[in-house]
């Protein structure tokens, strides 16, 4: 089956790549927070921007958890639509976050990346979870 041979591992690998980069940004977010602030900043401004970025990253990790739950439970593992959507979104998300990390883009750009590359696959995943668990349809 073509979906087993190529879509499932590519979806898994792009998902893990995106997850690893989000965890890396979480771990080393100092530089990025400083990039959001003006040249002269107070401690409170730093803490405020830091908290915002922590919230954004935590919501991203929560959505990752939803998608991994759907993937590993088998509900959406063989669904071709979700695999394709997820692979595309997470691959572009991983590349965009690499730029965010290394080029030290401002924090507002993170919300755009989050919106396009984390929310869309998670929403479709939640829709699939609802149809399988709630409406009792078949998982494929």
């Amino acid at each position, binding site marked *: 089956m073509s979906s087993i041979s190529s879509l499932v591992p590519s979806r898994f690998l792009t998902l*893990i790549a995106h997850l690893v980069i989000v965890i890396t940004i979480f*771990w080393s977010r100092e530089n990025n927070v400083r990039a959001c602030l003006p040249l002269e900043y107070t401690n409170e401004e730093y803490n405020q921007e830091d908290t915002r970025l922590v919230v954004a990253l935590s919501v991203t990790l929560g959505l990752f958890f939803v998608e991994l739950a759907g993937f590993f439970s*088998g509900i959406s593992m063989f669904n071709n639509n979700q695999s394709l959507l997820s692979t595309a979104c997470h691959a572009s998300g991983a590349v965009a976050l690499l730029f965010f990390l290394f080029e030290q883009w401002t924090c507002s750009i993170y919300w755009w990346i989050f919106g396009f590359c984390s929310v869309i696959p998670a929403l479709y995943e939640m829709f699939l979870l609802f149809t399988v668990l709630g409406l009792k349809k078949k998982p494929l």
Partner: protein
Amino acid sequence: DAVSMLSSTPLQVLFYLNSWYFAVFFIAEILMFIYKGVLLPYPQSNLILDIVLLLLYLGLETLRLFYGWKGNLCERTLTLSISIGVLVPCTVLSVYYLLLQTFVLRLEFILNAVLLCFYGLELILGLITISAFARYNYDFV
């Protein structure tokens, strides 16, 4: 009472995804060692040790995944227990790359942590599967 299929599907899925993940992990580690070798002040012997251990890791992991894959599908206890036995040196190597090597990058830390999650789940599922084989397999080992 007879059970139709004893092979564990979750374990097989984990082996399949682990083989893909380890392939990418190995390529990433090679690239990171090139990066570290150029950028960081490595004593020569440490770099050679780390690279030799990485090649050893490739061999061990391939062995472990092959034995686990075939042992689970053919429902053979001995083959699957060899896979769990080889899990021990693989875990040691993963912890080495996570904590004890000369220079640990954040990315290496996270990649090895994911690998250790795989190992933990495979250990638990492997032990459950071996107990299922031992319980229901009366004909052959």
